[in-house]
C-alpha cells in the first residue's frame, strides 16, 4: 500500500507462500500444499480459484482443491506450458506468489439439507474435491452424497488413495469409471455419463455439481435433462483464458459474464441465454 493509492492495495501484487508438501498424482498432475509466509491462513469458499505467480514467467489461474476446514491451500497443477513446467520443478521449501481467492463459489449454504451429486471428468475432480471435502467435514448439513468420477485412462486417475478412503465410507457413494479398459482395472469402463443411471438418490431433487473438460458438459447436461433434473439444480464449473483474475482484462469473458467474477461456478439456469457458455 502507498499514499498515492488512497490506502488501497495493489490488486496485481502476489503474496508469497511456501510449498510445504508436493507429490505427483500421475504423470502430468502435481499436488501441492502451500502456506502463507505471513502465517495467516487462507480465507476462501469451495469453488474459488487463485492466481499462481512465478516471477519471471507469469501467472495462471488454478482451482483450489482443499476445503477451508483445513489449514493451508491445496492445488493441483497440470504440466502444460512454461509456467506450469517451472512449478513442476519446484521442491518443498520453494516459494510461489498467490493472488486471491477469486471467483464465485459452490452453493455451500443453499445446498444444505439437500442431496449432492458430484459429476467429475478428469481434472474436473480437482475443484470439486474442495466442496466434497467441505461436505464431508460438515456431513450432518447435507443429504446423500454421490460422487461420480470419470477418467480417460487408468494411469491418469487422481487422488487414488483418498478416493479409496471415500469408497470405504458408509455415508457417501463413490462410483468410478475409466474411458478405456485396462488390465489393472476391474471397475466400470465407459464415459462418466454411463454412471448417471446408477445414481440411487433422487436425482431431480439433488444439487448436481459438474466439472470436466469442455466436451464432457454437452453430454452430461443432455443426460441430466433426460433424467428431469431442473436447470436451476445444476452447477457447472467453467474455465476460460485468464490474465488479471479481477474482472478487468477481458480475456475470460463468456458473452457478458466474466469467469473470474461471475464464475467459475455457474448455476446452469443462469447460462440459458449465454450461447458461448457450453
Amino acid at each position, binding site marked *: 500500500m*502507498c499514499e*498515492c*493509492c*488512497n490506502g*488501497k*492495495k*495493489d*490488486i*496485481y*501484487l*502476489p503474496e*508469497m507462500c511456501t510449498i510445504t508438501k508436493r507429490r505427483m498424482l500421475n504423470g502430468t498432475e502435481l499436488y501441492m500444499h502451500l502456506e502463507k509466509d505471513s502465517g495467516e491462513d487462507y480465507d476462501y469458499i469451495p469453488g474459488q480459484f487463485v492466481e499462481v*505467480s*512465478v*516471477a*519471471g*514467467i*507469469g*501467472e*495462471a489461474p488454478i482451482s483450489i482443491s482443499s476445503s477451508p476446514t483445513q489449514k493451508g491451500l491445496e492445488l493441483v497443477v497440470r504440466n*502444460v*506450458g512454461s509456467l*506450469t513446467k517451472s512449478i513442476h520443478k519446484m521442491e518443498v521449501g520453494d*516459494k510461489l*506468489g498467490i493472488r486471491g481467492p477469486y471467483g464465485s463459489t459452490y452453493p455451500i449454504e443453499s445446498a444444505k439439507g439437500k442431496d449432492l451429486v458430484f459429476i467429475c471428468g478428469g481434472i474436473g475432480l480437482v475443484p470439486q474435491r474442495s466442496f466434497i471435502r467441505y461436505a464431508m467435514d460438515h456431513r450432518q448439513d447435507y443429504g446423500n452424497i454421490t460422487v461420480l468420477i470419470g477418467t480417460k485412462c487408468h494411469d491418469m486417475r487422481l487422488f487414488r488413495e483418498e478416493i479409496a478412503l471415500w469408497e470405504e465410507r458408509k455415508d457417501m457413494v463413490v462410483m468410478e469409471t475409466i474411458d478405456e479398459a485396462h488390465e489393472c482395472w476391474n471397475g466400470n469402463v465407459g464415459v462418466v455419463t454411463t454412471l448417471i443411471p446408477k445414481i440411487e438418490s433422487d436425482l431431480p431433487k439433488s444439487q448436481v455439481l459438474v466439472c470436466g473438460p*469442455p466436451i464432457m458438459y454437452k453430454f452430461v447436461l443432455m443426460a441430466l435433462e433426460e433424467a428431469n433434473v431442473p436447470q436451476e439444480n445444476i452447477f457447472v464449473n467453467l*474455465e*476460460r*483464458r485468464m*490474465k*488479471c483474475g*479481477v*474482472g*478487468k*482484462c*477481458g*480475456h475470460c*469473458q*463468456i*458473452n*457478458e459474464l466474466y469467469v473470474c*467474477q461471475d464464475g467459475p461456478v455457474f448455476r446452469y439456469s443462469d447460462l440459458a441465454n449465454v*450461447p*458461448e457458455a457450453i
Partner: protein
Amino acid sequence: MSVSTVTKEQFKSFVTALIGSDQRVVGVQAKDDKFVFGDLNNADDLRLDYDVTILPPKKYVLPQKETLLNFQVGGDSQSVQEADKMVLLGVHPYDMVAINQMDKLFSQGEYDTHYMNRRRNVTIIACDVVTPSENVFAASMNTATCDKGFDILLTDIGDSYVVEAATDKGEDLLKMMDGVRKAAAADLDKRKAVQEKNRTVLDKHKLECKPSFLPKLLEKAYEHSVWEEKARLCYSCGSCNQVCPTCYCFDVQDEVEWDLKSGCRYRAWDGCLLQNFATVAGDHNFRKKREDRFRHRLYRKGKYVPGKIDGEIACVGCGRCITACTAKIANPVEIYNTLMETTEIS
C-alpha cells in the same frame, strides 16, 4: 465552478507558461496530414481545431505498455505505481465520455490503483469540436458534447475561448491565465450555439435509433447473418481495438533483464479480434471463429459493458474504427442499422 472568457492570444501565452512549468504537457499536434496527442514543446504546435487523432487519449491513462510490478526472478515482487503528473490538452467530448467510462470500470469491483493513480495525476483540458472528422457519429451516440470529467472545457467562439473550470485543479490552472474575464451573456450564447451545432453536424453516419435501444436490439440479433457476412473479410488485425477509446482489454506478461536476476510484470493493450485472445493452454480456442470475435466486440460496446455502467453505451461515435479498419467492415452504425431492418423487437 466558474465560466470565463480568454482571448486566443492570451490562451497561447498560458500554454507557453504551462510548457515552461514543472508539469508534463501533452497536446494535440499535426503529424503529416493527421493529428496525434504528443508532448508539447511549443505552444504554436497545439492544434485545438483538429478533427480527430489517430489514437485516442486513453494511452495516457492506460498506456500501451505499463509496468505493474518489479521482481527478483523466482522471488518477491514490489508494486510499481508509475503516474506522470501531466496536463492533457485538447480532449474532445466523445473521448472525455470514454475516459469517464473507463474511470468507472477501473474503480468498480476490484479497485485498480495503477489506472486510478495515473488518472488522478492527469489534468484534462477538454475542447468542443471545431472540425468534424470524416467518420464521426458522436451526435448519434449523445457524445457530441460532454458536461463532466474534465478539469477545464474550452469552447472556440471565434477570437476567444469560453473557459469552464469544473474542478479545483481547473481553477488552479485558470489562475495561471492572464486576461481572464467572467464570461458575458453573449459569450455563453455563442458557446451554446457551438455545442448545439455539434449535436447536429457530428453525424456522418446516422444511427436509426436511440443508443439506449441497442442492448434490446442486440438481445435478438445474435444469430443474424451480418456477423458472418462482415467477418468473411475480417483480417483479425485488431486495428479496431487499437484505435477505440473504449477498448481497454489488456494482456499481462513478465519480462526478465539480461542479468536473469530481475525483471518486471507489465500489462499491454490486447484486442478481442485477435485470433488467440480466448485460447487457453492446451490450445483450445473458446472464440475460434472470426464472426464470433467480430460479433463479440459490437456486443461489448452495445450490450455487455453498458450492463456494467448503468446502461451507458460503450461506443462514443469517434469513427476511428471506421477509418482504421483494413477491410472497411467496422462501421458500427452500418451494422446496428442493418440489424434494425430485419430484427423484430417488441
